């Protein structure tokens, strides 16, 4: 299977007042056509910066992609001249953002913003673009699209604005959609609507999706495969079924346990991950999760831990010296 997107050894650094930090550290992964890949982690783990670098949207300065390759259908996007990158952005690869109110321009109607994309990338005329935009708004489930196309973003609800963002991102038929926390700003019932819509459209348009989220519940319900990130590194990568059946990295299992989820019987105490995420400017030398890990051993803090393929299960890798490996007797 040839990958649609292949990210190799991506490193992104930022200059801050307090020094230079590495937000994304040697991240490698691939996305196959038609696949939904989840990128999971907490704030500051580098998941959004990873998504932005694919589109060449990392603000430079203060950011800088210092190493790596991002191969999209074999072309290294990091080597493309700005003009060529602009042609890809929005047509072959597009992105939807967390906060639809800030991502849409408040002084233009939804229609003006949608037709701009279509005229720019597809060279449609004004009327053609308007018709295509109305059709697209209908596809993402906006009622009476021929009327709503004249609305300004503030006239719509949060869920509707996010649908407009999706319609805009999909209007040129991208092969890859990067969705950065697309439902985090929405209510649960609206989140359910929008996620259902994304999955439906992903099948309809046969595109690949990178879904960036902090919510493991969203990953379990929508993704095929997931990468778990911690402090700029990928700590675990597996199919969603494997990941949830038996999380191998202690951070993954800690994260899964600590989500408040509906239970038949309310627990007395929620399981927690003790401590805090280390300061990105002052990363521990060995395993970055070592001082929060329950199964930490003396050699965990010595050297950088490599991301290694798990011996048994095929498409799975873990960055841990003592991973929980699913065996009949549970973990040791």
């Amino acid at each position, binding site marked *: 299977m040839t990958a649609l997107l292949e990210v190799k050894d991506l490193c992104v650094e930022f200059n801050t007042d307090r020094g230079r930090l590495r937000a994304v550290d040697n991240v490698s992964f691939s996305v196959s056509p038609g696949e939904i890949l989840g990128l999971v982690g907490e704030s500051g783990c580098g998941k959004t910066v990873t998504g932005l670098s694919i589109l060449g949207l990392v603000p430079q300065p203060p950011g800088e992609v210092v190493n790596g390759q991002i191969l999209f259908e074999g072309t290294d996007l990091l080597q493309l001249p700005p003009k060529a990158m602009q042609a890809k952005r929005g047509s072959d690869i597009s992105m939807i953002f967390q906060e639809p109110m800030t991502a849409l321009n408040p002084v233009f109607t939804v229609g003006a913003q949608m037709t701009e994309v279509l005229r720019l990338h597809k060279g449609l005329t004004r009327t053609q673009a308007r018709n295509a935009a109305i059709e697209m708004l209908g596809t993402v489930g906006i009622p009476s699209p021929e009327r709503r196309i004249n609305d300004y973003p503030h006239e719509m609800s949060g869920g509707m604005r996010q649908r407009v963002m999706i319609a805009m991102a999909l209007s040129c038929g991208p092969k890859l959609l990067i969705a950065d926390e697309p439902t985090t700003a929405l209510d*649960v*019932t609206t989140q359910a609507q929008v996620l259902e819509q994304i999955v439906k459209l992903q099948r309809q348009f046969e595109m690949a999706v990178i879904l960036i989220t902090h919510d493991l519940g969203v990953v379990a319900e929508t993704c095929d495969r997931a990468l778990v990130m911690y402090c700029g590194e990928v700590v675990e990568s597996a199919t969603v079924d494997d990941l949830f059946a038996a999380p191998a990295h202690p951070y993954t299992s800690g994260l899964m346990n*600590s989500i*408040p989820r*509906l*239970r038949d019987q309310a627990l007395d105490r*929620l*399981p*927690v991950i003790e401590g805090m995420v280390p300061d990105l400017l002052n990363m521990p030398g060995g395993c970055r999760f070592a001082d929060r890990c329950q199964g930490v051993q003396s050699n965990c803090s010595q050297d950088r831990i490599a991301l290694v393929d798990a011996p048994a299960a095929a498409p799975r890798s873990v960055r841990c010296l003592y991973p929980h490996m699913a065996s009949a007797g549970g973990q040791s």
Partner: protein
Amino acid sequence: MTVLLEVRGLKKHFPVRGGLLHRAEAQLKAVDGVSFKLEAGQTLGLVGESGCGKSTLGRALLRLHEPTSGEVYLNGVDIAGLDGAALLEQRRNMQMIFQDPFASLSPRRTIGQTLLEPLEVHDIGTPAERQAIVAELLDVVGLRTAVLNRYPHEFSGGQRQRIGIARALTLKPQFIVADEPVSALDVSVQSQVLNLIKDLQEERGIAFLFISHDLAVVQHLSDVVAVMYLGKIVEMASAADLYRNPRHPYTQALLSAIPVPDPQSGSNRVILGGDVPSPVNPPAGCPFHPRCPQATEACSRVAPTAVNTGTESAPHVVHCLLFSDSK
């Protein structure tokens, strides 16, 4: 059990102004006739989506918003009618934990100044005693006394929320309104703060109104859960009962919309169509009927009243016409 808080027909309407003369053209009914009782030491979880009025309700209870009408009894005293010194006196008993740990702490005050202020305002203890109270509180919320001379920006979100909790505890209140206290935090920190709140419930016997959009978080902490939609409570029952046996179609949809962190769970999700209507112009009849999968023709005309589908000792109150005929 003694009733600590009793709310009767509480309403909070905001005028919507417009036009040339800036007259009130309409009323936004953020809280529209809410009644409930809360026993001492119990936690009421208040759930609903954005704009349903849950935060406004929490603030109106503490008189951070002036209620439009209705009564709020704390220990038998109607707070809604108090002012001046009498209100200040009652405020000792009721405190608030805010959602945004970044906006709710003054950036120009040290943590010590922030925590000492309530004690100074209410003139409690000597300066030395105040210092001792604050030091003890920091210990309770899991922070070191060294933080007293530091400023909020030096702390992470989870630590700030602990400071916000310590501030709410300084006056030893009987009742705390916690408005989405963990929704700005990362999951791994969220559970730490939730466990802290749970400890406070048990050790100090504080009654909480715990406001959240997240049904799973509420389940963990609440004795009783109330579900709000468009300014009204649509269902209220003990937590165990509500989660096992949700009756109102809105509660059922809300529960089924939560993403389950288990790819094997085949979800039979109720996806609601449309959006929450505007509280300026709520639908006639049942406010939920335009989105309700079980709505009948009557739902658009008749406003449902409270029906107790449980027992006298374990009430399960539903505002839905589906249940009013069976009684």
